[in-house]
């Protein structure tokens, strides 16, 4: 490839990281984990009064709304907070697969475009691989905590979750030490202080709750940092 790889690569990386500069994605992911943990905690007693069912349904609805509409929620927040401050950019590989395939069909004759699209496909494939690893690691950590009665498995879960998040995000967004160091530390804390009476799904719920809290806290701190560094510019004529 004949491009000044380092410059373009840096610009590309900055654009990819720009998606996470405001912390909204992390914040919303944390909120989703917290709601899921709340649902697990709330439903464990098997309460069947109409009010408890309604609350349970509301939590479930909020959780599903966040999980299914995560991108739209983040985009809505960005439109009001991020774009007026620091602008808008679509990094490569961010659009849907279908868009890329349509482009590919149209532009395969063009070397420049086909190079670009094959790079985008590589980015997609790499991202998918990393996300898959994270999902497997997180599921192993949560279900392992539920099924393996050893309390020190929390530490292993923390390390597993930390490794999963690190693998999934290291190329796209700045690594947060709060999350990377937080998971193992919380695992040690839970192994040390959590009662032996906490068993089964409750163990998974505790793990989810701490993961959610860490993501949420990291998102809030990133947002505060972002807002302090980038005050809303005064409107001027462009």
């Amino acid at each position, binding site marked *: 490839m004949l491009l*000044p790889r380092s410059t373009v690569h840096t610009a590309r990386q900055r654009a990819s990281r720009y998606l996470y500069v405001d912390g909204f994605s992390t914040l919303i992911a944390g909120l989703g984990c917290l709601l899921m943990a709340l649902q697990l905690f709330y439903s464990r007693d098997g309460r069947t009064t109409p009010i408890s069912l309604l609350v349970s349904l509301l939590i479930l609805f909020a959780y599903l709304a966040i999980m299914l509409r995560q991108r739209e929620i983040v985009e809505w927040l960005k439109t009001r907070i991020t774009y007026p401050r620091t602008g808008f950019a679509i990094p490569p590989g961010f659009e849907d697969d279908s868009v890329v395939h349509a482009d590919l069909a149209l532009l395969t004759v063009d070397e420049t475009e086909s190079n670009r699209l094959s790079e985008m496909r590589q980015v997609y494939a790499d991202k998918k691989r990393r996300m898959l690893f994270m999902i497997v690691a997180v599921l192993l950590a949560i279900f392992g905590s539920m099924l393996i009665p050893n309390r020190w498995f929390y530490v292993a879960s923390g390390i597993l979750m930390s490794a999963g998040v690190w693998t999934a995000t290291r190329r796209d967004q700045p690594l947060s030490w709060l999350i990377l160091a937080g998971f193992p530390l919380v695992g040690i804390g839970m192994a040390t202080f959590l009662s032996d009476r906490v068993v089964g799904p409750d163990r998974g719920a505790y793990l989810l709750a701490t993961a959610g809290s860490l993501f949420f806290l990291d998102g809030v701190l990133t947002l505060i940092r972002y807002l302090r560094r980038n005050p809303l510019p005064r409107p001027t004529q462009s």
Partner: protein
Amino acid sequence: MSGNGIKDLSSLDRMIHEPARLMIVTLLYAVEEADFVYLQRECALTQGNLSSHLSKLERVRYLTISKAFKGKYPLTLCRLTKKGRQAFEGYSATLRSVTKASAV
């Protein structure tokens, strides 16, 4: 590219060679599209300066500028055209071959 070493420098695309425009084109090459505010922040150019360079690049059809809205937020979107991408790749290829040839 003729492979004449130092003489190839004369064939560099002057539209891209100007530092501010090179910054803009490099940034746009790295993304699908970006808006005016993003480019201004990344390139650290004034509004007028950026605007003038964008107009020049648009005039030679290296990029397209379109107005859009995201919610109520107006966007001035810039996207490199196929011609612009090819020009940037040609420019970087020439520059690379020259620097390679003149390396000691």
